[in-house]
C-alpha cells in the first residue's frame, strides 16, 4: 500500500509532465476524433434528425430511434445479440481448449502451424467464406451429398448453419488472442500448487482461471464484437431469413426496394454502438477486478 506522501509526489510530478504528455498524444487524439468521432457524430445526428425533401429543412425527431426499436428492426437486434453471444461463447471455449493444447504441446512445428493457420483463418470471412461453405455443406455441396447430411436435418441456411460458419473464423481468432495469455501461466505456479497438494482442478479453479479471467473476458468481447458486426457472410448465406441487424442496415441503406430509410439505418447503427458499449461496460469493471489478481 503506497503511503500518502509518495502518492502526492507522484501526483505533482505527473502534473508537471502533463502538458507535454498530452502533446505527444495529440496525433492519436486527432486521429481518433477524425476517424471515430466524426462518423459517430454523423450517425448520431442522422439518427435523430429528419430532412424534409420538400423544403430541405432539418428537424429533430425521435421517430427513427423509436422505429429501430420496434417490429422487425427490434427482432434483428435481438437476433444479432443472440447469434453473437452464442458464437462468442462456443468459439471462446473451443478456442481456449485448442490454444491450451497448442501451447502445452512440445512440438514447435504444431505450434507454429496452428498459430499461422489461425492468423489466416481468423481473417477469412465475407463472401468467399460463405461460398466455401456453400460448396462443401450447402444443399448440393460435396460433403452434403456424400454424407447425406440433408436427411440428418442439416441446413446451412439457418441459425445453426450460420453459427457453424461464424465459428470457422471466431475459433481461430480466440486461439490467436488467448495463446499469449496461456503462455503467461508460468509452469512454476502449477508446480507450486502441486507441491502444496492441489489437484489439477483446484489449480485451475484457484490459480489458472482467475489469472486468465481478464484475457478470457477480453477474448469473449472481441469475438462478440466480430460476430455482431459481421455482414457479408450472413448476407450471402441467409439473406433475410435469419434476422440480423447488419443485414437490416444494409437493406435500409443500400437497397433497391425501400426508399427514405437511411435515417433508420443510422439509428440502427447507433443501437449497435450502444450495445457494443454495454458489453464493454460489463467487461471493463470485471477486468479491473480480475486484474487485481495479477499484481
Amino acid at each position, binding site marked *: 500500500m503506497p503511503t500518502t506522501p509518495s502518492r502526492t509526489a507522484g501526483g505533482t510530478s505527473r502534473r508537471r509532465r502533463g502538458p507535454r504528455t498530452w502533446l505527444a498524444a495529440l496525433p492519436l487524439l486527432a486521429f481518433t476524433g477524425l476517424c471515430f468521432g*466524426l*462518423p459517430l*457524430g*454523423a*450517425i448520431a445526428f*442522422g439518427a435523430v434528425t429528419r430532412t424534409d*425533401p420538400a423544403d430541405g429543412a432539418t428537424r429533430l425527431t425521435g421517430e427513427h430511434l423509436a422505429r429501430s426499436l420496434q*417490429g*422487425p428492426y427490434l*427482432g*434483428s437486434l435481438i437476433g444479432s445479440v443472440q447469434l453473437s453471444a452464442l458464437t462468442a461463447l462456443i468459439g471462446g471455449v473451443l478456442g481456449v481448449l485448442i490454444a491450451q493444447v497448442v501451447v502445452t504441446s512440445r512440438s514447435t512445428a504444431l505450434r507454429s502451424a496452428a498459430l499461422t493457420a489461425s492468423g489466416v483463418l*481468423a*481473417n*477469412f*470471412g*465475407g463472401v468467399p*467464406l460463405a*461460398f466455401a461453405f*456453400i*460448396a462443401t455443406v*450447402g*444443399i*448440393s*455441396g460435396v460433403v452434403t451429398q456424400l454424407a447425406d447430411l440433408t436427411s440428418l436435418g442439416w*441446413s446451412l*441456411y439457418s441459425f445453426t448453419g450460420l453459427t457453424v460458419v461464424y465459428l470457422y473464423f471466431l475459433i481461430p*481468432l480466440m486461439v*490467436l488472442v488467448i495463446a499469449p495469455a496461456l503462455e503467461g501461466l508460468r509452469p512454476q505456479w502449477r508446480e507450486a500448487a502441486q507441491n502444496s497438494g492441489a489437484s489439477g482442478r483446484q489449480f485451475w479453479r484457484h490459480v489458472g482461471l482467475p489469472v486468465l479471467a481478464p484475457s478470457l473476458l477480453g477474448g469473449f468481447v472481441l469475438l462478440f*464484437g*466480430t460476430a*455482431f*458486426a*459481421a*455482414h*457479408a457472410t*450472413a*448476407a450471402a*448465406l*441467409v*439473406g*433475410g*431469413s*435469419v*434476422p440480423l441487424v*447488419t*443485414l437490416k*442496415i*444494409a*437493406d435500409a*441503406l*443500400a*437497397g*433497391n*426496394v*425501400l426508399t*427514405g430509410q*437511411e435515417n433508420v*439505418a*443510422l439509428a440502427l*447503427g447507433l443501437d449497435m454502438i450502444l450495445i457494443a458499449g454495454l458489453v464493454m461496460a460489463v467487461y471493463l469493471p470485471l477486468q479491473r477486478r480480475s486484474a487485481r489478481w495479477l499484481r
Partner: protein
Amino acid sequence: MLSSSARRGAAVLLSAAVLTTLSACGAAPDPKSGAAGDAKSKVQPGAAASVADFGSMEALVAAAQKEGKLNVIALPPDWANYGEIIKAFEAKYKIKVNSENPDASSSDEIAAVKSRKGQDRAPDVMDLGIAFARSGAAENLFAPYKVTAWDKIPAGQKDADGRWYNDYGGYVSIGCDAAKIPTCPQTFADLLKPEYKGKVALNGNPTKSGSAFGGVYAAALANKGSFADIQPGIDFFGQLKKSGNFIPVESTPATVEKGETPISIDWDYLNAGYAEQFKGKGVDWKVAVPTDGVYAQFYSQAINKEAPNPAAARLWMEFLYSADGQNLWLKGHARPVLLPVMTQDGTVDKDAVTKLPQVQGTPAFPASEELDKAKATLAEKWDKALS
C-alpha cells in the same frame, strides 16, 4: 485483426458518414464549357431539355465529344447487356465511359449524386429502380430532358416533365435447371410440390433486391392478392419455407452454375441470360414466366441535374433510346420500353425477340401508393413469415 466481414459491417455503418466527409475533398468541376462557344447551340448543355436546344444532333455529338467522357454507375456488364452497350457507345462516339461500382444499388446511386454534388466524378446518368426515380425527382435531383423518341414512350412509363423515363424491364420468371430437375415448375402453385424440396431460391432479400421484391409481388398476384395487397405473396413464401422448399441463399450466376439454386425466381432477362451463359456447362437452364402470377417491372433512366458531363449524359440518353440502344437491351433479353413501337415500325431485332420467354397478356403496373403500401407491408411482415 477483424475479419473482412466485420470490416464490411463497419463499412456499412460508417459509409454514410464517410461519404459526407469525402464530399468536401473532391475537385471542383471544370467550368461548364461544353458547347458554350458553339455558335449553333442555343443553351448551356446542362440546361438543354431536348436535342433542339443544342441545335442539331451533330451539335450534341460535338458538345459531348468536347467533354470526352461520361460517368456511369451501377451498370453490371452481365445485366441486360450493359457491357456491350457501354462498348458500343464508346466506339460510336469516341467518348470514354467511366463505369463506377457496377454492383451498386439504386440508393447507392442517389447517395453518390447527393454526396458528390459539384464534383467532376459525380455520376452523369443513372439507371434506377422506379421508386428511386420517383423519390429522386421529388427531391429535385434530375435534369428534365426529353429524348428524340420521347413521344413514343407510353405515358404511364415516363415523368411528364422528362425527369425520368422507363428504359427496360422484364417479367418475374422461374428459372430451372432441367439437367437436375426432372419436371420444371411452370407456375407458383407448382413450386409448392414436395419434389422441389430445398430447391427454390430468390435473387436476394425482397426488402433489398428489386427482383426478389418482384418475385413476392408476383406470388401475391398468383394467390388472390393484388397490387394493393402483397400479404398473400409473403404467406406463400412462408409456406414454401415451412415445407422446406425455399432456400434463402441469394441466387447469383455462381450459385446457378454450381447447382445450389436449381430453381431461381428472377427477372426473365437474367434467367434467359443464364441459359445462354451456362449452355454446355452441365446446366440446362429453362425459363418460364408463371401464368398464375404475371408481374413486370421496368427500371428508369435519369440525368443528374448537376452532371459534370451534361452533353455526354444527354447523348447517352439519345443513344439508349435509339433503335440501336433499344436493340442492345433486347439482345440482353430485357424488354426495352420502345419494344411495342419498334415491333410496329420494323426496327426491332426480330431474332432477339424470338429468344424472349413467352408471355400471355399485357402487363399491368401498380400505382405509386400501391407500391409504397406493398413495400411497407413487406418490410414489416417478411422476417416473421420466414423465420
